[in-house]
């Protein structure tokens, strides 16, 4: 068995994970130093145009260590967002060790802690790495103390590095060789390989990323997925270099890919176990979980004619994203569309972004919600993830909504503000811990519905960017739920309805009415916007009719200008939705839930000179990897400059 080390890098969102990964690739000579950035990224553009992945999330790095021996270092990349914690757990299950990356200027953050716990659950060797030591604000001693007190790790073991400057990379590589246990596994036992990722290749179908624990697999073998219970014939196996590199076989301990004529990614499940049909393993590898969507929203095409295009786009998109679920939905206001389920809000934004960018679709996405449970008078229990299916209020005996446990790590001085925010969001059962002087970890139990819109943004704002946040789903709890309807000139806009806690209905009603007032252009008549629960109006706003709209002069040169303006307005009109006699622009539906920049992307910080990383971000959206380096200060401006969609 070759000298294999399987490891992952885990870090808080902007602590430099991608940069370190890039450095490791460079240091192990996968690409020539001089050409590193350009070459890698150029290929990436090309590949992006073709819609296939180049820089796979996993990569095998051939490395000759100081001891003179050849090693195969398998870097298994993990999505760095809480939406994808199950996927992270499967990636970690494929490793023997992790690099726990901590930003020398930011210190230990909520995700650092959460990631550490995940790694510990999998019994992994943890190598602390302090990154960005070149920054003027780097506080190496302070971070070492945090590593000691907050993480309980030996601070003297921490490796100091600057991925950006290329400092300490050799030490990192040597530590992987020395500390991460060699991959082991019984070659003679029946095949068991853990699926930790799957990508769609338009020529080859699904490319399954897996870690082989026991046995071996070769082209021609018949494999069986143990949970999904499907059988496929293996066409090719191999390892990930910069591109896929076929091998004769994958054997116990190895990390690589299997291509087996699997049509869509949805035919595979992350966490499933692959075995040989002829000689199956006794039982599957532990830890498999059915991934269930927790956030729901509907997607409609702006133009009803585009419904078929949207349907096809979703089908194609789904090829590479098994986590997205969708089914047909019809709205009186917006026509035919789809109700979609997402792993979280970031996932939702990715889907929206990619549908618009890659499939050139203009879509309206409704306010996201969660899945509620209702107990009816006749004793039946129903789950509702679409406000349109809210039961008849008179038949409802009680409601329940999902709760999470939120972990928020902040400097002490923000405790008051964060407490207030969490209480506003119906947080309960708070507890505090002081992991180190000046820092507080607040834990709250909160309704999931309260954090999916606006929460992370607000947290970042009130903590001046210092607050970090992570959560886990807890359970369903009783809740007084009502359906808030929005009426425009007395016509119900069903796509704007939402299920909310009774105490929050008024706030939401006011917010939606105000946003709509700002977004709906003046029309020939007065427009009344109302929020209502059943027949009761709880909020209202009015848009006055436009009173004067005529230009004084229209001679020679004015005519062309005027017609061009009309043509532009006409095009704009196509992006409007008629509700009764009122034209509602797409932006109004979006404005209802947006603050200025999408919250999750706010967390992806980068410097202007890291624009290539930004491209990478979009490329990686398929398997989300928003862990970008950078300082919080530069976020908004750069983001807005490069992502014209975000106004």
């Amino acid at each position: 068995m070759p000298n294999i080390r399987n490891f992952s890098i885990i870090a808080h969102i902007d602590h430099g994970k991608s940069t370190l990964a890039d450095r490791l690739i460079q240091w192990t000579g996968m690409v020539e130093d001089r050409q590193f950035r350009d070459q890698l990224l150029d290929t990436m553009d090309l590949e992006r145009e073709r819609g296939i992945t180049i820089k796979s999330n996993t990569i095998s790095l051939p490395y000759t260590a100081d001891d003179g021996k050849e090693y195969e270092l398998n870097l298994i990349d993990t999505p760095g967002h809480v939406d994808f914690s199950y996927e992270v757990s499967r990636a970690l299950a494929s490793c023997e060790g992790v690099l726990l990356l901590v930003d020398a200027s930011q210190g230990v953050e909520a995700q650092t802690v959460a990631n550490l716990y995940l790694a510990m659950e999998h019994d992994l060797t943890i190598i602390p790495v302090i990154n960005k030591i070149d920054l003027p604000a780097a506080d190496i001693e302070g971070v070492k103390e945090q590593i000691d007190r907050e993480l309980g790790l030996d601070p003297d073991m921490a490796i100091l590095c600057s991925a950006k400057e290329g400092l300490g990379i050799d030490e990192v590589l040597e530590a992987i060789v020395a500390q991460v246990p060699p991959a082991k596994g019984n070659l003679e036992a029946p095949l068991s390989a853990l699926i930790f990722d799957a990508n769609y290749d338009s020529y080859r179908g699904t490319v399954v990323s897996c870690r082989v624990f026991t046995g071996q697999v070769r082209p021609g073998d018949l494999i069986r997925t143990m949970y999904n219970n499907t059988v496929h014939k293996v066409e090719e196996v191999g390892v990930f270099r910069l591109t896929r590199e076929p091998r004769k076989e994958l054997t116990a301990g190895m990390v690589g890919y299997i291509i087996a004529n699997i049509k869509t990614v949805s035919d595979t499940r992350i966490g499933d176990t692959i075995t040989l049909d002829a000689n199956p393993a006794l039982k599957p590898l532990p830890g498999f979980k059915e991934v269930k969507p927790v956030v729901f929203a509907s997607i409609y095409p702006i133009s009803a004619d585009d419904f078929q295009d949207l349907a096809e786009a979703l089908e194609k998109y789904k090829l590479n994203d098994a986590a997205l679920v969708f089914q047909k939905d019809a709205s009186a206001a917006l026509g035919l569309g789809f109700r979609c389920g997402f792993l979280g809000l970031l996932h939702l934004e990715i889907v929206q972004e990619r549908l618009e960018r890659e499939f050139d679709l203009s879509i309206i996405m409704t306010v996201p919600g969660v899945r509620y449970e209702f107990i009816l008078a006749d004793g039946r229990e129903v789950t509702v993830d679409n406000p349109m299916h809210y039961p008849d209020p008179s038949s409802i005996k009680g409601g329940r909504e999902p709760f999470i446990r939120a972990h928020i790590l902040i400097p002490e001085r923000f405790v008051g503000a964060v407490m207030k925010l969490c209480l506003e969001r119906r947080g309960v059962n708070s507890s505090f811990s002081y992991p180190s002087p000046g820092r507080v970890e607040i834990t709250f139990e909160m309704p999931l519905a309260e954090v999916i819109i606006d929460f992370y943004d607000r947290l970042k704002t009130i903590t001046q960017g210092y607050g970090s946040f992570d959560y886990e789903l807890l359970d369903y709890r009783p809740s007084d739920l009502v359906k808030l309807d929005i009426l425009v000139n007395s016509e119900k806009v069903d796509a704007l309805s939402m299920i909310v806690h009774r105490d929050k209905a008024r706030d939401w009603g006011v917010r939606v009415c105000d946003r709509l007032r700002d977004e709906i252009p003046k029309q020939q008549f007065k427009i009344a916007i109302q929020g209502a629960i059943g027949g009761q109006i709880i909020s209202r706003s009015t848009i006055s009719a436009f009173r004067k709209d005529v230009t004084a002069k229209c001679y020679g040169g004015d005519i062309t200008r005027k017609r061009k303006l009309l043509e532009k307005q006409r095009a704009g009109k196509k992006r409007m939705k008629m509700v009764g006699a009122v034209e509602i622009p797409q932006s109004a539906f979006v404005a209802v839930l947006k603050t200025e920049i999408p919250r999750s992307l706010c967390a992806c910080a980068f410097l202007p000179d890291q624009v290539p990383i930004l491209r990478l971000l979009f490329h990686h959206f398929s398997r989300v990897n928003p862990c970008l380096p950078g300082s919080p200060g530069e976020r908004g401006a750069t983001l807005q400059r490069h992502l014209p969609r975000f106004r």
Partner: protein
Amino acid sequence: MCALVESLRRPFDFAPDTEFTLEVNPDDVTPEKLRLWRDLGINRLSLGVQSFDEPELRFLKRRHTARQTIRALEQIRTAGFRNLGLDLMYGLPGQSLKRWTETMKTALSFAPEHLSCYQLTIAAGETPAPPSETPALPTPFARLAARGELTLPDDEAQRDFFLLTGQFLRDHGYVHYEVSNFAKGERYCCRHNLKYWSHTPYLGLGPAAHSSMAGRRWWNHCSLQSYTATLAKGELPVAGSETLTPEQLRLEALCLGFRTREGVALEIIRQFPGWEAVLSELQGSGLLQLTAGRVAATPEGLVVADRLPLLFVD
């Protein structure tokens, strides 16, 4: 001036009833010049009066005073010009309806055959649609507005100004034949103006002049330098042109027609899918009226004339 007119008379055959207008400012007018203009065959004057109120004239940065205007008007009449148009401006910051009515009354005391009443608008950073070589500079007013030193009346007040203007002048016997134009009887409707709005061919000479014929429109260089330089090379001084598609022609027919008393021929409206519902709705709300096969904006409709075409297109 003589040379200019002579050079026009040489290639062009002037019909006996040619409308020959000269646009002048009050401070341009002298009895000598008036005589000369008459002798050259100019039979209509358009005078840039703007206002009879001194502070308003100063605000508008005009060279002339109200007194000069009144003298010019008297001289024009004395010189025998029987077709006179006045340009007025309203909706100025701080202007009241009463003061504007006074301005109109003063203007009417000279019994002008034609009035153009323009609502002050700020062309903030607008670029000229026909791409020309000189980018449009923001006007001084646009700069003032950008600094917050100039506030125009709000929509509601502008609407009041507009409706009052139309009502007042119609009550005084004027034909409201276009958004901003009024004539003392049919025969004084400005033919120069009307041609723009009916897709009649026209030829514009000189820098920045626009011309139109048979669905094609072209415009000359704006700067005198490029204009003369192109001519010197023996080429037409055309800076750009466009050829309108039938759809664009239809759209223009709507947007120009709804600005005029003539309106739009029903045959043209009929070419827009779903026109019946839109038309009947707009008739119902009193914005459009249908008479003798033509659809025209009511006074209320004129106030929102920019919107009306959009309601017919999908």
